[in-house]
């Protein structure tokens, strides 16, 4: 490489030019100003766009933000937040949901790296709303555009089983798809040790014959998913579609790695504590692992059994005059679809007051149950079957009988005595009626006896002046 001088003066008098510096400072400043301008303009443009997306998303559900300015979107910190947010129905302006504070923080690095939507934190404080059914049978908050349901008047039983079934059907669909993928991978043993397959390259319409290769998808999934790394939601109140003691007065929900589809080695936890209007605190803990195993614990230490008297809640147990409290504890685990669980209910002060609408079986059981005089009964039930269709594998009745043998004996004796007394009274009444009929018959057949009766009646008339 030549080391010649950069400038060769043409004349001896030519001035010596200072060698140029390596950095163009005006370019540096111009670039800095440009970035600064982008930084100033981006929030105005992109944030407004994101906000409009959110507002349009709500509008598609028939909802609107009461005060759109309360919602803040920050592009640089990848955050959506807000204070005193209220979501209302577009049609009537009724409040659907309100929250004191919202903070949704996107994990940009993870989202980029995993090709997912990774929400680092989703925190909602002071969430409140209403799921109460209106006079026309609709739950306005979730089905504002649905036609009125005249057959779903207040008090119509909520089909919890149907709701559970719908959720499980969705989960089953996903799980079956995942299993099919795993089976397909197993059937190709030579490929299991290799990386997942690269998708076929795409051809470029603007450049025929050129093709673009696609990245190898992350092991175990091919479609971006939404995952919440830390979930914290606390609320003030959430009335359920039908008024009952289970109406939620406050709740707290915490979770980690909350996602429908889990990544390899991921562990999802979800803990909920719910304060109800009349059923005390109910807690729920779910742990779910990517290998299709998990556990679910449920505790409701003070459920008033009178709540089950309502057809909307109790179903077949309704109208039985149930009284007492139940402390329910349930621990369940699942592997694949197979469920293995225990449900123990401690029933205290249990009594039944059947009426005309009470189920026949309950009416028959009422004397025995009432004869127990509200003593505490521990009722362990074994659950099994599958997650989609849980079944009771052991009703625990034998255990209840064994634990309460003496009391049940007394109760049965009492019931038998009562039954005997009832039968005795019935027989006596029947005998008396038969005797009366026989006497009447004899009197009608015998004219002498008839005369004596008539004479007696006349005597009585004379005596009382009638």
């Amino acid at each position, binding site marked *: 490489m030549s080391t*010649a001088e950069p400038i060769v003066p043409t004349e001896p008098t030519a001035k010596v030019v200072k060698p140029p510096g390596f*950095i163009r400072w005006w370019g540096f400043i111009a670039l800095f100003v440009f970035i600064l301008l982008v930084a100033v303009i981006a929030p105005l443009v992109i944030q407004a766009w994101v906000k409009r997306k959110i507002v349009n998303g709500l509008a598609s559900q028939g909802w609107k933000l009461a005060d759109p300015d309360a919602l803040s979107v920050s592009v640089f910190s990848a955050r959506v937040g807000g204070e005193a947010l209220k979501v209302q129905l577009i049609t009537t302006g009724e409040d659907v949901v309100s929250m004191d504070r919202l903070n949704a923080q996107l994990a940009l690095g993870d989202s980029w790296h995993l090709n997912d939507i990774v929400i680092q934190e989703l925190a909602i404080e002071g969430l409140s709303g209403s799921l109460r059914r209106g006079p026309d049978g609709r739950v306005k908050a979730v089905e504002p555009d649905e036609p009125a349901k005249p057959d779903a008047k207040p008090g119509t039983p909520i089909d919890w089983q149907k709701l559970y079934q719908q959720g499980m059907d969705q989960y089953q669909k996903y799980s079956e798809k995942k299993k099919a993928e795993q089976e397909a991978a197993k059937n190709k043993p030579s490929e299991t040790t290799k990386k997942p397959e690269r998708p076929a390259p795409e051809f470029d319409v603007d450049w025929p014959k050129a093709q673009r290769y696609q990245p190898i998808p992350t092991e175990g999934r091919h479609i971006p998913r939404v995952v919440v790394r830390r979930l914290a939601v606390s609320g003030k109140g959430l009335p359920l579609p039908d008024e009952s003691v289970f109406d939620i007065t406050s709740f707290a929900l915490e979770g980690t790695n909350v996602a429908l589809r889990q990544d390899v080695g991921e562990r999802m936890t979800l803990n909920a504590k719910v304060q109800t209007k009349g059923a005390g605190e109910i807690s729920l803990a779910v742990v779910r692992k990517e290998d299709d195993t998990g556990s679910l614990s449920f505790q409701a230490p003070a459920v008033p059994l009178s709540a089950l008297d309502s057809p909307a809640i109790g179903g077949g147990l309704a109208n039985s005059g149930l009284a007492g409290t139940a402390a329910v504890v349930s621990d369940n685990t699942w592997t694949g679809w197979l469920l293995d669980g225990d449900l123990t209910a401690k029933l205290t002060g249990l009594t039944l007051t059947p009426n005309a609408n009470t189920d026949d079986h309950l009416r028959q059981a009422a004397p025995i149950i009432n004869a127990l005089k509200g003593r505490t009964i521990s009722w362990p039930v074994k659950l099994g079957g599958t997650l989609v269709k849980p079944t009771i594998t052991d009703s625990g009745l034998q255990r209840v009988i064994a634990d309460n043998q003496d009391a049940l004996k007394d109760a049965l004796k009492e019931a038998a005595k009562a039954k005997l007394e009832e039968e005795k009274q019935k027989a006596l009444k029947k005998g008396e009626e038969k005797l009366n009929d026989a006497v009447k018959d004899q009197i009608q057949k015998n004219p002498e006896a008839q005369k004596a009766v008539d004479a007696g009646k006349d005597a009585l008339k004379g005596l009382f002046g009638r």
Partner: protein
Amino acid sequence: MFLLYRLLRNLIKALASDAAPWQLFLGTFLGTLLGFLPIFPLGYGPSPLALILIALVFILNVHLATVFLFLGVTKLLTQVLHGPALLIGDSLHDMAANCADIPFLNASLWSHTGYLGLTVLGFCFAPLFAILMYRFALYFRLHLRDKLTAKMKAMRAGQIIDKPWLVRPVCWFFGL
């Protein structure tokens, strides 16, 4: 065309200007590279590598006219090099596939066989053009410029010189 002419004139003036040869070298290098690299192909979005190079063009004290000239010229050149670029890209399909797994290179379209071929061509031509430019700048300043200046002075003094019809426009063109 007028713009191209202006750019070309600016470049040639640069040879006689105060721009240091290394500025011309870097300007040619970056301009050629930017010409061959995809910057913002429709349907793919901006290439991060190209954006970094553009930022470097403004931050480093390179000769801007040289950059724009070579960028324009090589952009035109790439239109006729699609075939060879595709041949090169196809022969490097393993590299393209591996680049697809590196987000930065994937976004810079190194996973696209056509653009990868052009990028490889860019990395071959850029140093070549830059060295040629550097050598020509030195040659012009050390040998050609003094001769042309002397001939121009002689012409102005009324002396008869060889090929005056050539010296005059060349001096005008170089801004001497």
